[in-house]
């Protein structure tokens, strides 16, 4: 018994218990860091140049159509309580706007990232769970029921405030208007369209019946099952404009994809010439000092135009190169003085 006690009391002689595990002891010595910095710097400069050049090839056309100033075409639509106002914004392209062209709408000073706004939706409704149609979640209030206690589908502030300006684009050729076809497919995330959001199954063969006993959001002119009557696959909660709107923007100054121009004569892009954009002006933003704009842009492998990345890479890359040179000087100086000491 005593022997047992003795052996157990003797500490294990393993590398771990004796803190002698084999270890790699990396040293950030100048010999590694200086060439490392140089390499990273050069690589970054290379990427930066690539990014910058790519960014330069991207064409962007931005137009504010809010109509704050009197001389703007949409000024007439900013009068409160005006119904079905339309205005036309003219623009011209001197060269071919290379396609595919993406058509965005943008809003400024619009806080889609308000916390209360963000939670104001009922995910179960949006997956087609009819149980929640008549009984929306509390988070939707004050957009859960209307004044007559009718449940709203889709409930909540996000759905209620869905962007409802619509646009038609015409090319002006010799005084005639040629409509540019706009493609509304593929503007929302694939997973949102195919998995995350689901329409309720039709009741008695009618899609609209599934929504019986509910009403459309207060600000909407029509119910959700009539968002796109031409294409059943783009209707209800699966309407792509609706899906795009439901994905909240990160910042108060944002843009969202509206349409793509990929069809017909415009598959290669927008040819040079004069264009007219017809705006069905419905969405009020002046009450909170917001702005609306449309953006035409083509994209590259890195997405939309973004000079920031290219510049950042250039700056950091050159910083690295400069640092490696400075370090080389400092190191050389100290190394020599070290040698003197020894």
């Amino acid at each position, binding site marked *: 018994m005593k022997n047992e006690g003795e052996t157990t009391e003797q*500490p*294990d002689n393993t590398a771990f218990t004796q803190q002698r*595990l084999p270890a790699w002891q990396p040293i950030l010595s100048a010999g590694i860091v200086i060439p490392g910095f140089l390499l990273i710097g050069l690589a970054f400069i290379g990427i930066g140049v690539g990014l910058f050049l790519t960014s330069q090839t991207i064409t962007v056309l931005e137009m504010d159509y809010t109509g704050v100033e009197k001389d703007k075409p949409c000024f007439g639509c900013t009068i409160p309580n005006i119904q079905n106002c339309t205005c036309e914004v003219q623009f011209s392209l001197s060269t071919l706007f290379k396609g595919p062209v993406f058509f965005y709408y943008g809003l400024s000073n619009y806080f889609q990232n308000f916390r209360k706004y963000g939670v104001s939706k009922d995910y179960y409704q949006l997956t087609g769970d009819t149980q929640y149609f008549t009984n929306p979640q509390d988070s939707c209030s004050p957009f859960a029921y209307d004044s007559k206690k009718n449940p709203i589908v889709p409930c909540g502030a996000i759905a209620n405030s869905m962007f409802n300006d619509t646009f038609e684009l015409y090319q002006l050729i010799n005084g005639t208007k040629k409509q540019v076809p706009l493609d509304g497919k593929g503007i929302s995330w694939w997973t949102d369209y195919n998995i995350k959001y689901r329409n309720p199954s039709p009741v008695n063969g009618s899609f609209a019946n599934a929504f019986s006993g509910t009403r459309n959001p207060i600000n909407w002119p029509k119910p959700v099952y009539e968002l796109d009557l031409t294409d059943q696959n783009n209707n209800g909660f699966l309407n792509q404009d609706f899906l795009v709107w439901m994905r909240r923007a990160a*910042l108060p100054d944002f843009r969202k994809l509206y349409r793509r121009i990929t069809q017909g004569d415009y598959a290669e892009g927008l040819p040079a010439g004069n264009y007219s954009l017809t705006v069905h002006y419905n969405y009020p933003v002046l009450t909170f000092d917001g702005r609306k704009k449309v953006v035409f842009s083509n994209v590259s492998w890195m997405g*939309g135009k973004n000079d920031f990345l290219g510049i950042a890479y250039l700056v950091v890359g050159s910083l690295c190169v400069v*640092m490696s040179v400075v370090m080389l000087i400092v190191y050389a100086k100290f190394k020599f003085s070290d040698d003197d000491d020894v």
Partner: protein
Amino acid sequence: MVRKCACRGCPNHQKQPRRRKSCGGDEKRVDSRTIYVGHRPCPDTEAFIPSKFCDNRIVSSKYTVWNFLPKNLFEQFRRIANFYFLIIFLVQVIVDTPTSPVTSGLPLFFVITVTAIKQGYEDWLRHKADYEVNKYPVTVLEDGRSVKKESEKIKVGDVVEVVEDETFPCDLILLQSSREDGTCFVTTASLDGESNHKTHYTVPDTEKDLQSLYATIECEQPQPDLYKFVGRMHIYKPEQEPAVRSLGPENLLLKGATLKNTKKINGVAVYTGMETKMALNYQGKSQKRSAVEKSINAFLLVYLCILISKAVVCTTLKYIWQSKDGQDEPWYNQKTQKEKDTNMYLKMFTDFLSFMVLFNFIIPVSMYVTVEMQKFLGSFFITWDKDFFDPEIQEGALVNTSDLNEELGQVEYVFTDKTGTLTQNNMEFIECCIDGFQYKHRDELDGFTVTDGPVSKLQQRAGQEKEELFLRALCLCHTVQVKEDGAEETPRDQVDGIDGMFPQPEEERGFIASSPDEIALVKGAMRYGFTFLGLESKCMKIKNRQNDVEEYKLLHVLNFDPVRRRMSVIVQTRSGETLLFCKGADSSIFPRVKPEEVERIRLHVERNATEGYRTLCVAYKQLSAEEYAMADTGLREARLALQDREEKLMAMYNQVETGMSLIGATAVEDRLQEEAAETMEALQGAGMKIWVLTGDKMETAKSTCYACRLFQRGTELLELTVRTLDDERLKREEKLIELLRDYHRRAVQDAPPVKAGVTRSWSKANQEYGFIIDGATLSLLMNPPRDADATLYRSLFLQICQNCTAVLCCRMAPLQKAQIVKMVKNSKGSPITLSIGDGANDVSMILEAHVGIGIKGKEGRQAVRNSDYAIPKLKHLKKLLLAHGHLYYVRIAHLVQYFFYKNLCFILPQFLYQFFCGYSQQPLYDAAYLTMYNICFTSMPILAYSLLEQHISIEILLVNASLYREIAKNAMLRWRPFLYWTVLGLFQGLLFFFGVRFLFSNPALQDNGQVFGNWSYGTIVFTVLVFTVTLKLALDTRHWTWINHFVIWGSLAFYVFFSFFWGGIIWPFLKQQRLYFVFANMLSSVSAWLVIIILILLSLLPEILLVVLRKPRGPHSRQKKPGQSNVVGSQSSQSSARPLLMRTFSDESNSVK
């Protein structure tokens, strides 16, 4: 030496932490209790009232099944941190806050559960141990029959039978022993760790037949002192006056001790259950807090301020921002009626709370858990270290508390005991001096030679008679026992010994004594022909030179105590002479003998003392019959006294021990501990100041200091002792202040200004000073006649001491040791103190110092029990401090700083995001990320780092003691490094947020033109964050074991995997699928990749630059691989060969900083 034996069921008891207070309701403050032996009513007393005592059940557990939950929760939430998190959680539940209560509730729940499980498990172990003890079968004598009972059923007054090798079930008064002489032997290994056999005695003259014993015992109420007991036993015999016997600790058998060498005993239970001395002794030690913890608290306060100011700023800005038209309630985000109705100020308050909740992650729950885990797990490395394993005692280091690991790296003052700590306490008889003639033993066979001392040149020997008297005194005046384990060999051994032949090494002769001095003396006497054969029934037998056995009747033992510093025995020779032999320290003997005898001996004593020997003087006195009768009655009376027994005994002892005549003196050498000098030198090299606190004589202590190289040849000694205070012109107080002023001028004012943390080597060019003070002077210094002087004295004294390389305090009482430690501890700058000692007299200073170290020496286990760390040898202190302490400090300091840093750059983007979301408390990260960040993604790498990091290898730390100074004065947790980390956190947080912000100026980041939303934004920031903080740690890691690799790359891989998983499934229990496919979509964007890479690199860039640029300076030779550079090799060889040179070198390099 008898090895420590594990006794059944009791090892666990040593850990029982808390003292259960009361059993039963009657806690009346009565001075004594009366016990009826065997519950038999005694005649002649008041009516037999079986008074109520608590039963013999031991309850060391804290909880029961029923009260565990409420009690444990209550105790846990008494911790401020837990309470804080509880409040945050409650706010989240009550107020409508941005994050769900789960985010803070889950970590809190985790922490609380883990702690509760740990405490529950510990308590279950205690329950189990209790059960084992309480159900242990014992034999109780009831009406002449032996009855088997469970231990918990024993009542006070029961007569209990215990057989050999059993532990006593409660505190017993020994009534009967199977040994003829009425003694029994016990070991108290499980009580105080002393494994030697102690003799206990039966109450004299009790009946052989316990059945017919009618007696009561009157004794004091239970008290925890193991070595004190006073009581009185009244024995009633028919038709006789009741006899009264005094009871002392020698009659009391303590619960937990084990019966040895005795077949069986009977005893009556006096204290049971929670009132036993063992139970009373298990008190939780007072909690020591480390300096690091204080730093953590200070930083916490700063972060709390940051948190509150963030919340205040956001709340204020929110209301300013909202005051603009249309901002507060745009048409797309209308408020509910309830919100509109809410009072404005209430809204502000809830907004403030919401911001607090949003930012509360800046003070993470997990830091406490990680720190605790680090300390707990880290302390295993001390117990595991095989360098601390001592083959002699078969034990390694012991960690009693893991709270102070890092304090080991911060020690500035080392207070060390001398005997047993600096020296081995392995006594060897060197020489003696009889009547002024010196006898020096040489290892020759006749064992007795006389050397030519300076005095004894003419006449080489003292008279035969004196010589033999002296040797008899040595043989008789002690409390040594002959070990009986090897009973068969002993007689032969003794016979051999008489011829002067020692075929066996003397150590095996088997003596047991409480102090090694005594054994050395008995053995010394043996060499000169007088052998102590043993004590049998109060009769001491010695064999003299003529091989005749002399017998002496032992009448009284006047025990040794540290105040008197001497002990005596009174014996009666066969011829009827009564003799008193006394031995003790010179200072306590000299005043009690004839002055003319002193002079002849004093010279020897002083010379021996300067050579570092322990000296004892021996005196004797013949007692006439009347004298003895007086002494006898006096002593008996004093022993029977129930009150002030100690004082009465002391007075009686003093009265008896007078008018003696001095026979001679002995010198015993106490060897230095292995590597004592090297250890001390290393500690001094590490910038620690070493104070030696000893109860020993100044000369002896001084010589030890020289031997340990604490004082060196050139050291100028400043002495402040009774001797230097003796001045004919001045009074002692005046002389004291004069000397103090003088020394102060020499050591402080004339010396160049001394920088903090610099000792010997800095002042190398200048004069070195050593300071010596003794106990009497110290008490004069601490309690001067005029109170007003006290502070002046103390500050002068402290200033002098701070400028001395070493300080020696001799003639210290245990309490004075603690006083000194306390004084230094509370002096300016509150330096970290460490006390190291091995004996019971060091306990007070061990408890007083920041870190108490016990040495598992020969003086029992009290020091070890009360210490924070225990090591087998003094030499282990070097590694404990220089290697373990240093590493622990660096690890935990880095851990703390890193934790604050990573949470600052975690929360800062969330704070900045408020400026872009209308101050609406929108979280930037998903709830899962908020919760998991500290628990899963970033916790393991730092834990592994804080357990395994060796920024400098252990070998170099040991060789290069001055490295210890680099972390002195809490160097890594001062405000500057904290500021550095904070700035780093701020920089990175800003970078993360604004880098992504600029990227999102065009949220179309995919090549299909689709845009990213707010959760993508948060996920990109979070990804950068996780990678950056992990890689930052990777940059700091200097010691990459496979574990580090595993946890660092594993955490990153886990993060990626988790994000895919979390975003890859529609979770049915979530109300919103915010992160669905966000992470995968992010990875499909080249821009996101590019921005992540550049932000990580840019965040780490300054760090890399600093590392590289700092490197060429400083003495960081350690960063070079040993194989690669010759510098390390040459330095280390230099330092071992010429340590002083090495020290100056490293100092210069230090001062560059």
